[in-house]
């Protein structure tokens, strides 16, 4: 029994040590520059914390949506969510956490946002089309939430393995979020978009392995 415990401990320590090796994720900015980076969702606070490794959805990289948004899609291991009165899929019943990160552009100053900010009150609906079977998976509306790396829209989802094209529909927040439009200094000169924005992330290969 002692040998089993010793062997198992040694094995776990060796593998846990190896698991600290970072995976690389490649991101291409809308400008076309390719950057390679490690992207742990949880900030590494000490040597033993390996963090969650975000993987990019598809190979399209971050996308510009309209004038004001840069949209990134990532996925990683499903996570438990504290959700007040909302009911959400638990991590144990889900294949992954599907996350859409929103950042405002420089031009978003026209509607009062600094660049590189999260934009609240968006309704983001992903629709996934499996390339070989043509099966369409509607993920509904993603929920706003916050993690250690900031706010985003997301959900824990179950998804059959496949090669997907992911199309996001982003509704304007205009129905839920007002703009100052007076002539005084608080007014903004820009307006929210009226037609829903569409963004596509292509070649999302989901292999169904444990994350």
């Amino acid at each position, binding site marked *: *029994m002692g*040998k*089993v*415990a010793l*062997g*198992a*401990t040694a*094995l*776990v320590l060796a*593998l*846990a040590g*190896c*698991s*600290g*090796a970072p*995976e*690389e994720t490649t991101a291409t900015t809308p400008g076309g520059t390719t950057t390679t980076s490690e992207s742990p969702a*949880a900030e590494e606070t000490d040597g*033993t*914390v*390996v*963090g969650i*490794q975000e*993987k990019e959805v598809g190979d399209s990289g971050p996308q510009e949506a309209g004038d004001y948004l840069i949209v990134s899609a990532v996925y990683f*291991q499903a996570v438990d969510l504290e*959700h*007040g*009165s*909302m*009911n*959400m*899929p*638990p*991590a*144990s*019943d889900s294949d992954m956490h599907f996350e859409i990160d929103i950042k405002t552009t420089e031009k978003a100053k026209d509607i009062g946002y600094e660049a590189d900010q999260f934009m609240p009150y968006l309704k983001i609906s992903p629709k996934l089309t499996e390339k*070989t079977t043509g099966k369409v998976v*509607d*993920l*509904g*509306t*993603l*929920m706003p939430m916050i993690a250690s790396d900031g706010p985003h829209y997301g*959900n824990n989802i*179950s998804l*059959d*393995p*496949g*090669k997907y094209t992911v199309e996001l529909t982003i509704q304007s927040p205009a129905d839920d979020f007002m703009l100052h439009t007076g002539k005084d200094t608080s007014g903004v000169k820009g307006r929210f978009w009226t037609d829903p924005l569409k963004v596509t992330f292509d070649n999302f*290969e989901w*292999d*169904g*392995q*444990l*994350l």
Partner: protein
Amino acid sequence: MLKLFVASAELALPLCVLSAMLIANRSYAPTRRQRVGRLTVASLGTGAVAAVVIVWLRLNTQHIRLPVINIWAGTFLLAAQFAFLAALWLMTRRPLVTDAPGRRSRFLTWTSLASLLLVNLYYGIPLYIAIDGVVPMNGTLFASDSLLNLIGYILGVVVTAFAGWIVAVSLGRVPSLARRIVTTLAMAVAIVCQWAPLYQQYAAVKFVPKSSLNFDVLLWIQRNSVPILLAYVVLSVVPAVIAIVTRRRAAPADAAPAERRLVRADTISRRRFLGASVVVGVGLAATYTVGKQIAEAVPELSPIEPSVVNGDNVEVDVVAVSDGHLHRFAYEASGGTEVRFIVIQKNASAAFGTGLDACEICGPSGYYERDGKVVCRKCDVVMNVQTIGFAGGCNPIPISYDLADGKLLFKVAELEQQAKVFR
């Protein structure tokens, strides 16, 4: 319960069959049987305990990244399996239990034990991680749901472990060539199923280039998990069949009575193992096909109950919805869209949870009642009944109601406005 039974039986089968075949192919001298036995328990135990600890760390700490662990465990396992297969065929027709085990014999035993450890680690991780699904969301371990799930999970592991025990015993009774062929076939299935995901993991860390062909193979494996499991089932029954076909039919005419009794006892034992093997094999095959279909079946929605449109309101009789169960109604909006909505009384109080038969995430897929709980038909999320009537997530999209003269009144205007959810 059935869902956890099917899940654990699926995840445990390759682990149990491969472990059994590795155990059946150890070679040793009769005098070292106990020592090899202890080493076998140590190998199996080390792999299993390491897998349990890794799963615990993965579920409760920030110290584990499973994809990287799978790369290391998967790589060493493949190397050990190939070494084991080489050792198996290098043994040719030499007996496994021999008074003078040579280098080939020791090579076979050590590669078998190394593979046993790694099989229990690699296949153990997904098996033990599935135990996280035993306790439903917002539940506790000692609730009846959780205990039934736990029983289902354990039963799945026990049945497949029993199948593995039959394989280990039966494989020890078959001729050398048949034993090596059956073992090689099972290892080949395992190696193919391990290789494609491992290559994908290598590509993720840019150790090898991405390969569309490999991803297609991986998809084929994922989509054909049932036929692959059935292949394991067939391979687990074959040794018992070969054992009965190749049995010693009768003792020589001049054999002592004790030897005749031994031959008869051996035949009886082989028949029993064949019977048990067939029963377990058919049971597992049914589990992976019919059982899986039942466990994953999406229930039909209950029928629409009567309600009355009266002026600006849709009226529902309070008495009809005061039993604590889920009730479904519908209003036909202009344009013919059927707007479904649900009502459930909360905890025998006067309050009712009311909402559309649809949520923001899953759309108009609907809800059904399972063991007194309200469940989303699409994503299987179990609702806290007290939160029905609050917005967000997988909650039914709330709709308002008034209570007057023993009737719940729903506004036609609000239902008309919500018709877009059902279009």
